[in-house]
């Protein structure tokens, strides 16, 4: 008889686990419903490219060029002119208050300069306290403004080329935002959703056995730590796979996320990522003595990984020590992989180092879990 490992015994544990999963309707619904709900909620709610941002206009004259410029800015959808300020000071106050995100100043000599061909200027001041909010509005600015001006002058598109050089759009920003792609959030959500459900559910799974007293029985029967671990881990790997499918399909159908890279590469890295999460959850459950403790430990891990991984805030915006800290979270590496593969079409070589990191996590968590697992009740 094989003392250390038996597939028959592992099979017994797996069957038991799946039956329990099926019986626990609420948890089962949560495993499938939560990812979809979160994706829809966050996918629509978190918008790094906001439109209709309140804007104040400081226009010194009311000529046709100024009007053309204002209507062109409004047409982009980014600017919503809520205020017409009489002075720069008034506009400044509006921004300080947070009433507007932008102040557009068109100088009094704007029309004169256009007609003289003397490189006219407009000034856009952006409230860069939330850098990502303003970046989309600013990026479209230059082109839109030039075209509007040309149309107002009645020029043909062909003649536009050299005239384009004329207009100077001056943007004042407090600091440079990291260029956040508008599709950034959904691939990131894949990692966050997986992390939340996988870690927590596995962490609870083993402590539930301890809490209900079934662990004593499980230990009194011939089952080895490796069997018990795999018996807990594999079912959640299957749940993770279903979640991944749900999120990816929804990403495509609901949000039209472009999918540039290799699906195989993405799915293989997802597999490694989920494995590391499930093993982390299992490690937590070898430490926690109650489900409540398991939950607390999960959150203790969850929040910093959310904040430091680059999901919520630009990774490169963090100080060096925080970046080093960020490296110890599997989510950090997974975010780089998904963003690279889904949006940039990166190949294996480009993400090999990150996948390597995830594999290190898998090995470390599995080792810790097996060492920490109490084969006895001591």
């Amino acid at each position: 008889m094989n003392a250390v490992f038996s597939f028959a015994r592992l099979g017994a544990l797996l069957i038991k686990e799946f039956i329990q999963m099926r019986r626990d309707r609420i948890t089962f619904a949560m495993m499938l419903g939560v990812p979809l709900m979160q994706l829809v909620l966050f996918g629509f709610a978190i918008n790094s490219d906001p439109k209709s941002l309140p804007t104040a206009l400081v226009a010194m004259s009311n000529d046709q060029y100024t009007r053309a410029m204002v209507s062109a800015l409004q047409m982009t959808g980014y600017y919503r002119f809520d205020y017409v300020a009489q002075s720069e000071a008034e506009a400044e106050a509006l921004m300080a208050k947070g009433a507007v995100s932008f102040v557009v100043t068109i100088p009094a000599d704007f029309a004169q300069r256009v007609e003289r061909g003397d490189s006219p200027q407009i000034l856009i001041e952006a409230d860069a306290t939330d850098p990502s909010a303003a970046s989309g509005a600013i990026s479209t600015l230059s082109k839109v403004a030039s075209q509007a001006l040309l149309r107002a002058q009645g020029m043909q598109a062909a003649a536009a080329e050299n005239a384009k050089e004329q207009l100077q759009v001056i943007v004042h920003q407090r600091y440079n935002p990291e260029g956040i792609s508008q599709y950034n959030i959904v691939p990131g959500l894949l990692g966050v959703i997986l992390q939340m459900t996988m870690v927590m559910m596995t962490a609870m799974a083993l402590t539930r056995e301890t809490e209900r007293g079934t662990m004593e029985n499980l230990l009194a029967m011939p089952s080895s730590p490796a069997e018990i671990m795999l018996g807990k881990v594999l079912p959640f790997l299957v749940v993770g796979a279903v979640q991944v499918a749900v999120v990816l399909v929804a990403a495509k159908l609901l949000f039209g996320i472009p999918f540039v890279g290799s699906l195989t590469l993405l799915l293989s890295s997802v597999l490694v990522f989920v494995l590391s999460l499930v093993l982390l959850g299992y490690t937590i459950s070898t430490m926690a003595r109650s489900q409540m403790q398991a939950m607390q430990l999960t959150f203790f891990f969850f929040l910093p990984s959310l904040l430091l991984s680059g999901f919520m805030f630009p990774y490169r915006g963090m100080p060096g020590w925080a970046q080093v800290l960020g490296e110890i979270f599997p989510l950090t590496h997974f975010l780089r992989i998904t963003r690279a593969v889904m949006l940039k079409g990166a190949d294996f070589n480009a993400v090999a180092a990150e996948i390597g990191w995830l594999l290190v996590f898998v090995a470390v968590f599995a080792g810790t879990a097996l060492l920490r697992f109490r084969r006895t009740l001591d």
Partner: protein
Amino acid sequence: MNVIDVHGLVKRFGDKTVVDHVTMTVAEGEIVGFLGPNGSGKTTTIRIMCGLLTPDEGEGTVLGFNIRTDSLRIKREVGYMTQKFSFYEDLTIGENLEFVARLYRLKPVSEHVARTLEELGLTSRRDQLAGTLSGGWKQRLALAACIMHKPKLLLLDEPTAGVDPKARREFWDEIHRLASGGLTVLVSTHYMDEAERCHRIGYISYGKMLASGTVEEVVRNAGLTTFVLQGPRLDRVADALQGSPGVDQVAPFGATLHVVGSDKKKLEAALADVEKEHKGVTVNPGETSLEDVFIQFMSGSKDNMAKDSKG
């Protein structure tokens, strides 16, 4: 060969010695009762024997396997029924048994499960969730699950707590049937009637084994004398006798009063005037019961779980 042969077992949790040099032997086919008050170390001793806990001191074998090094093999040959119901409440009876059958690698699974269900009269409840069972049925399921792999030794930790008398009777009939088939049983209990159904008993208190042997031996070796008092207003007699020299226990039993003491002469002296002082009361020598012996043990042993007031 002794099925259980352990000596000098010591287990400490922190600075509390829960099992204190316990020595025990159980021969094949014996039913041995393990008695003692709550928290006396019964469960811990049983857990050490089935490999769930490692003793701090002491050696021994269970079924010939070393309890320190061979716990995996012991687990395969022993059936252990936990004090608290520890099967899956969200699984049906059938599913629980199938799970256990697969863990012990019994083949074919369905045949073993069907036979076990049949033997314990559980077939009609096969598809019922374990969580919805009453205490008696849960206990029956737990017993079924731990004898399915045909263990050579059964360790039962207070198996009949919270079970009605009829189910208790049936349970014990089942235990005796299994023992007659060669199975060895170690069972912990609080009930005196159950203790009397055992071939031998061991009494443990605060981690120490205080007495062991057959019920008769334990009663005889305790060296207690018992008198039975009958008559009117026995409560007054009880109050009068309480605390008298030589009187260790005064306990009402229905319409009678049992007076127990370890020193026969002193006890007789204390009772000499009772018949004169209380009209209509008669004093007769009586049989010392197992319960009298246990109460004597309990009041005599010191509580090492309590905080030491000196320091």
